[in-house]
């Protein structure tokens, strides 16, 4: 009796040990494959702990986390588009000016076009319409205009880069000046205000707490059903599937992350509208990168242009598309910017291009092209915002903030270079 129970418990321990080793191996492999991204996650955690210790509980309180994640959105929208641009081996220095330019265009539209021209027309046609509703229409039109102008800016940059073969660095450096100039032209050097309150709330408002809960539930349902659906499809194709436990843990992790974030934000005012939008856009662009031909082609072009060309890929058309997508991101950033500031003023968006590029690079995007992820860029942008936020609360002098941010950027690239060396 004793021997029997003894052997079965040994068996159990063996099975457990086996499972544990496989587990550790699996996670070690995933970490090694994305070493850059994980290093930066560790840096982020380190920063959070550091500021928590130095500043105290207010730093990780719901209010501060809410402000911090909101503050990262504008640069993050730009960084998401920038990942694609850099992955194809190009660069866009014009995004900061273009963001400011679009913000003034949108303000100009609402203040100088919609209010004096379209508004009287609409009120005449639909006399019962409330002023708030008219404002919403104005805002919807403003968003559409921002996306179109952004797309055109992207087309301009992309066409000259891809088809007229002027290096992207030069084209967009030119763009940096051009859009800054146009920004002054639109505003005439004066601040344009007031914008509609509905436009104002895009960046600054919160979703009702109940909506947050509904979103959390929907996202978790999606995570679970999608994971199971993917497993089912792999079986149908006769492909090997990972042990269920891996997927369960993964599902659990992401579900807790989503539910936890929503819960935590609801402790303050609720989910922030720009953060929800950022997650949606990031998801779409990640999908674009990983699951579409366009995404694959972008990485191939940056990885080896010649091989991509000889594989039948139209390089010019794809680079143009990348810039147009970048332009749409600029459009969104422009809307967010005008919404945050509440006015259209000259001088907006200065150095945003550099912050966006830095976010990408800190998040593991290689300036040589061919490498980079959206999630990495978001982590990069979160690191920068965390530094900003923590430094302000610690009253770190301005000069030191710049110095430390610069050092972090260099450190991130050094990590990349150093790990690359060991790979060789």
């Amino acid at each position: 009796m004793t021997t029997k129970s003894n052997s079965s418990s040994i068996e159990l321990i063996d099975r457990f040990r086996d499972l544990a080793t496989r587990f550790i191996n699996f996670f070690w492999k995933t970490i090694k494959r994305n070493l850059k991204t994980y290093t930066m996650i560790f840096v982020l955690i380190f920063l959070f702990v550091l500021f928590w210790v130095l500043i105290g509980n207010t730093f990780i309180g719901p209010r501060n986390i809410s402000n911090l994640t909101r503050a990262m959105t504008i640069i993050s929208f730009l960084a998401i588009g920038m990942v694609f641009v850099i992955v194809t081996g190009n660069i866009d220095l014009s995004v900061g000016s273009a963001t400011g330019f679009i913000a003034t265009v949108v303000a100009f539209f609402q203040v100088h076009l919609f209010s004096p021209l379209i508004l009287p027309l609409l009120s005449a046609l639909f006399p019962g319409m409330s002023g708030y509703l008219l404002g919403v229409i104005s805002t919807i039109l403003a968003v559409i205009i921002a996306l179109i102008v952004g797309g055109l800016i992207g087309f301009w940059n992309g066409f000259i880069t891809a088809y007229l073969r002027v290096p992207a660095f030069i084209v967009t450096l030119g763009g940096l000046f051009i859009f800054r100039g146009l920004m002054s032209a639109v505003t005439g050097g004066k601040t344009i205000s007031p914008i509609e309150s509905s436009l104002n709330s895009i960046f600054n408002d919160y979703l009702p707490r109940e909506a947050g809960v509904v979103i959390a539930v929907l996202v978790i349902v999606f995570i679970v059903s999608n994971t199971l659906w993917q497993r089912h499809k792999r079986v149908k194709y006769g492909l090997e599937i990972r042990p269920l436990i891996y997927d369960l843990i993964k599902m659990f992790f992401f579900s807790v992350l989503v539910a936890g974030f929503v819960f935590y934000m609801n402790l303050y005012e609720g989910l922030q509208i720009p953060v929800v939008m950022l997650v949606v856009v990031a998801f779409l662009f990640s999908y674009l990168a990983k699951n579409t031909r366009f995404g694959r082609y972008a990485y191939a072009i940056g990885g080896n242009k010649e091989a991509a060309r000889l594989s039948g890929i139209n390089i010019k058309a794809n680079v143009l598309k990348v810039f147009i997508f970048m332009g749409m991101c600029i459009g969104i950033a422009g809307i967010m910017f005008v919404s945050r500031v509440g006015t259209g003023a000259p001088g907006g968006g200065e150095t945003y291009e550099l912050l966006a590029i830095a976010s990408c690079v800190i998040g593991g995007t290689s300036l040589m092209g061919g490498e980079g992820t959206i999630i990495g860029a978001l982590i990069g942008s979160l690191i920068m915002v965390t530094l900003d936020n923590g430094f302000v609360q610690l009253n770190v002098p301005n000069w030191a903030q710049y110095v430390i941010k610069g050092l972090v950027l260099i450190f991130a690239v050094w990590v990349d270079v150093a790990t690359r060396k060991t790979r060789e």
Partner: protein
Amino acid sequence: MNNNFILEFDRVTKDFPGIRALSEVSFKVKRGEIHGVCGENGAGKSTLMKILAGVYPYQSYEGRVFFNGEELMFSGSSIRKAIEKGIAIVYQELALVSQMTVGENIYLGREPNQKGIINWNELYSKTQDILAKYKLKIPFASTVGKLGVGQQQLVEITKALSEDAKLLILDEPTSALTETEVDTLMSILNTLKKNGVTCIYISHKIEEFFRIADTITVLRDGKTINTVSSKRTTVPAIIKMMVGREMKERFPKAEHKMEDVVLEVKNLTAFHPEYPSRVIVEDISFCLHKGEILGIAGLMGSGRTELVTTLFGEYGINVQGQVIVNNKPFDIRSSRHAMNQGISLVPENRKDQGLILEQSVLENISLPNLQQFSTALAINKNQEVKICNEVVSKLGIKLGSLSAQVNSLSGGNQQKVVIAKWLVSNPLILIMDEPTRGIDVGAKYEIYKLMNILAASGVAIIMVSSELPEIMALSDTIMVMHEARCSGILKRKEATQERIMTLATGYE
């Protein structure tokens, strides 16, 4: 050691992983002579010269090399020391800074200076002196980029001479030169000889040896075959020495059944994309049948690669002539267009043109074929994995998983990945440019077998290769190219190595 000889190789052997590049090479070079070294691609010429240049240090090879009576013992990477000893090499690919002037190039890295400030007057007067000494007419203040290739070559030679070279090695100096430029080079070499400079002259073009070389050494498969005086030999004798190897069982035997014509090329002419006046493919015509392997032979730079990349729509410009694919006229536009007509190209250089080294095997294989398993909105990744798995096992590519980086594979397996890329597209016509370059014998054999299987299944294959035995063993028809033109088309039975070599050197 006899002082008559400036250089002596004594049983030099050099091994690379899997390959013996040099096997007991021995020969001597007399002081003041022009010594020709010839051999097929891969005969060991470049390896030998790299030992002289200090690229492969002492003890990385066996045997001994004597220069000026003393043994060469370069340690580490000692290219600079070789130059100091008086050994100068002018490589096939010129290493000049095209934005700098002739004088700047000649003294690059050792500009006459006082405390770091360059003395330009001294630099240019020295340049002038050395040009005058060897009676070279080069505008010494002009930027190198403005000079023709021939004159650039002379700048390289002048640079070597200015460093007081006692032994000048020219590696394929005439491959990019026009006839008149070759004449100039020859007369300059004669002048140098009168000035007491010894010269080793490496070339594919056998007739050139008889114009200037005093002695000719023939290398084959890493061995010295013979060193003869050029006055006591003939071109056919040299060709025979170069190719006269025994054919071993290195090739799988297969008879191909040729069916209908799938590709007809009539009077194809194309021009260089950057220098539109330079003809890269001139008046080429041939026919390719279903199930046929057409071998394209020729020396490097004879226009083989240019021909196939032009057919694939990715190189030549102002393409004239007619191409007919499957009885329909095909107008050459882009690689995508060619692929849609069923033409695939396994490019010459797998690392630069065939693969994205940092990406996974899966991503590489599916890159040209994504349309097969994707809609505009999504790639069917399961289908992708399935198809890639199939082709990987079909070709016997050895890898841990499809997500392995291509970088981590061996050369042979990398080459198979490139081939896999194009097999997934089910080509009608498969063009393979140097399909076995730089891979070991075993992997070569497998690729040959694969080519035979493909041909048997009805694929028409065009193979460009520098290795004559490979061309002869696999091809049903052999087209030989010389200076952008087709210098002959041979049936498999008519082809001998001598005959191909004669056509390839344009000696017929």
